[in-house]
């Protein structure tokens, strides 16, 4: 059990800098999701933590140890690969025994024929089998033990990969997009299973994914990474509600947050497209800004309840059963807004009809042209 710390980790491939000085402190027992679009460097970072790749500069610290020069097999970590990397020629049981045999049996005991003659081997193998059985029970895999990976479904293989990682009781689990090869329904199911597992084991989980929903639903903290830099590391709630960077705000949340260009005047008042104004004042003056409005913070109707609204034309409606997402273009501009609304409202708005969109409770997040967050005067974001 240990925390993992990354101190100014950099990595370059030739002249391309893939990781630009990553600093991260992961607490012991924490489930942290490393999330970002493809190519942002998150998998590289994970492999550097594992030791499968060497960083160009910076330190990786596990517990109290700086492990830069320590080879992967000595770092006491376990990894679940995207492709699971199960040994195809071994049964599930044998797959799970591999880490234990490598750790506990000596070189001679491991030899194919001669090793079986060593009496100490029998004793050790009994313990190995016991651990494997316990792990299989925990993952409800008992009936799969004698099968080979080729005979298993994707979800089953995933569980075996997790099982193989668990048997050694490592100080941290590294997971490289373990769910991305599964179909949607199975993915949702496995998310809760992995989260359950984390609660049971209380070990550090470092989980890499490009799916922001996975990151939000499973983790204690989310680390949003883009182009080799960590933009924000915070709880899922905070990353969602209080993004510090425009890119974070756009990446997190589905559907994507609406963004409209705007301007803040000398008095701190915000004006955006279609001369729509916000009541609250910003902590900035006389700048061009970007106003972010999440779909659930907007509403749409044929007629807005009070004066302030954006005139739109309805282009498309997404029926999600419990809600509708209405896509509408702001008149006179090319900007498209996605608004969450109730089914009755959406059904009452025909395609290509005119409607009005307004912000509910003025819940907006504002960013400067440098992508940095700008806050409102009154305490709340």
């Amino acid at each position, binding site marked *: 059990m240990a925390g993992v710390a990354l101190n100014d980790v950099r990595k370059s491939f030739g002249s391309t800098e893939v990781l630009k000085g990553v600093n991260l402190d992961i607490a012991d027992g924490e489930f942290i999701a490393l999330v970002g679009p493809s190519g942002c460097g998150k998998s590289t970072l994970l492999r550097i933590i594992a030791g499968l790749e060497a960083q160009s500069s910076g330190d990786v610290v596990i517990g109290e140890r700086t492990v830069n020069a320590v080879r*992967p097999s000595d770092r006491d970590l376990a990894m679940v690969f995207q492709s699971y990397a199960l040994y195809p020629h071994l049964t599930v049981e044998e797959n799970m025994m591999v880490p234990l045999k490598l750790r506990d049996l000596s070189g001679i005991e491991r030899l194919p024929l001669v090793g079986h003659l060593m009496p100490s081997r029998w004793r050790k193998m009994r313990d190995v089998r016991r651990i494997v059985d316990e792990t299989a029970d925990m993952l409800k895999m008992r009936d799969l033990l004698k099968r080979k990976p080729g005979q298993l479904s994707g979800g089953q293989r995933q569980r075996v990969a997790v099982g193989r990682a668990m048997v050694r009781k490592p100080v941290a689990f590294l997971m490289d997009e373990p769910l991305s090869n599964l179909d949607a329904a199975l993915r949702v199911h496995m998310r809760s299973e992995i989260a359950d597992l984390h609660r049971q084991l209380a070990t550090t989980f470092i989980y890499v994914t490009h799916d922001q929903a996975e990151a939000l639903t499973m983790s204690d903290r989310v680390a949003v990474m883009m182009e080799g830099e960590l933009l924000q590391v915070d709880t899922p709630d905070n990353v969602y509600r209080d993004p510090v960077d425009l890119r974070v705000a756009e990446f997190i949340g589905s559907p994507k947050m609406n963004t409209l260009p705007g301007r803040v005047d000398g008095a701190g008042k915000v004006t955006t497209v279609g001369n729509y104004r916000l009541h609250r004042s910003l902590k900035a003056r006389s700048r061009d800004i970007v106003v972010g409005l999440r779909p659930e913070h907007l509403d749409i109707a044929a007629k807005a309840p009070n004066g302030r609204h954006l005139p739109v034309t309805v282009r498309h409606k997404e029926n999600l059963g419990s809600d509708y997402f209405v896509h509408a273009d702001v008149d006179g501009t090319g900007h498209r807004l996605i608004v969450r609304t109730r089914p009755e409202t959406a059904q009452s708005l025909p395609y290509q009809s005119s409607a009005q969109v307004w912000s509910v409770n003025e819940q907006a997040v504002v960013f400067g042209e440098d992508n940095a967050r700008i806050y409102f005067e009154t305490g709340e974001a």
Partner: protein
Amino acid sequence: MIGSQTNLGEALKHLVLILGALTVILPFYVMLSYSLKSPSEIERNVGGFVGAQAPMVDERCVKLNEPGKSEIAAAKPRFAGRSEREIKEKLVEELRQKCTMSPVVFNYSKAFSEAPLLRYLLNGLIVTLSIFFIQVLVALPCAYALAKLQFWGRSFVFGLVIFCLLIPVHAIALPLYIILSKAGLTNTYAALIVPWTISVFGIFLMRQFFLTVPDDLIDAARMDGMSEFSIVWRVMLPTAIPALLAFAIFSVVAHWNDYFWPRVVITGNRDLFTPPLGLREFKGDADGSFYGPMMATATIIVAPLIIAFLLAQRRFIEGITLTGMK
């Protein structure tokens, strides 16, 4: 990091590989080197790689052209006043001068003159190319039919192909020889070529390849009015060039180097010898002084494929791998 990245490790690996390479190259070195040396150098094992290339006297040439009575008589006017014995000595001296040449020339010219090596090389070319050509002619349509056409008995034919893969042609040399003998066809080009015209391996390989060609391509050709025959040669063949190339390499190498079958089937007619047969015959009546020409013959036989290989290594190795993985 995984794996041996140490410089010492690399050096050791290279050491082992170099030792292996030396062992592998040894016979090639011997062959080439001794094809350049004189008989005395060969016997005494001196002269480095290329030999001293000191002019040597071809003893056989001298013996063959030894001046007889008539030559001595004819030379009398040139050596007025000398005895017959002296004239003969002088003539032999002149002869020795004429029969002097560098070892390289000696070896390689003997290689071509002692036996019709050029003819043998030509035979090798004719046989190898004919075999490959007919193999393709037979295999391609069959592979196409098995891969893309539906007909009753298709699985039977394919099963037969698989079964025939088990029969190494060298193993059935004897009955084939009898059949050919009875038909009076031994000592003919037909005997050298026909047994190899069916390459079940080729059929199998091409079929595997053809299976990957999209049906749409073929349907489009049909709709354009192409006959099935044209489809094989105008549509399937171009897409299968890599596999065909691999097969070509396989076939050409195997048949240029084949010794056993020609040995069985060419029993009297030297004109039909393939290069390995020619070399073997050379060895048959060689004495000590003929190691040089023998090595020269061997070099000439082995050179074409080796040079082709060196020029196109990647292709060769890819080809062999492709055929292997199937």
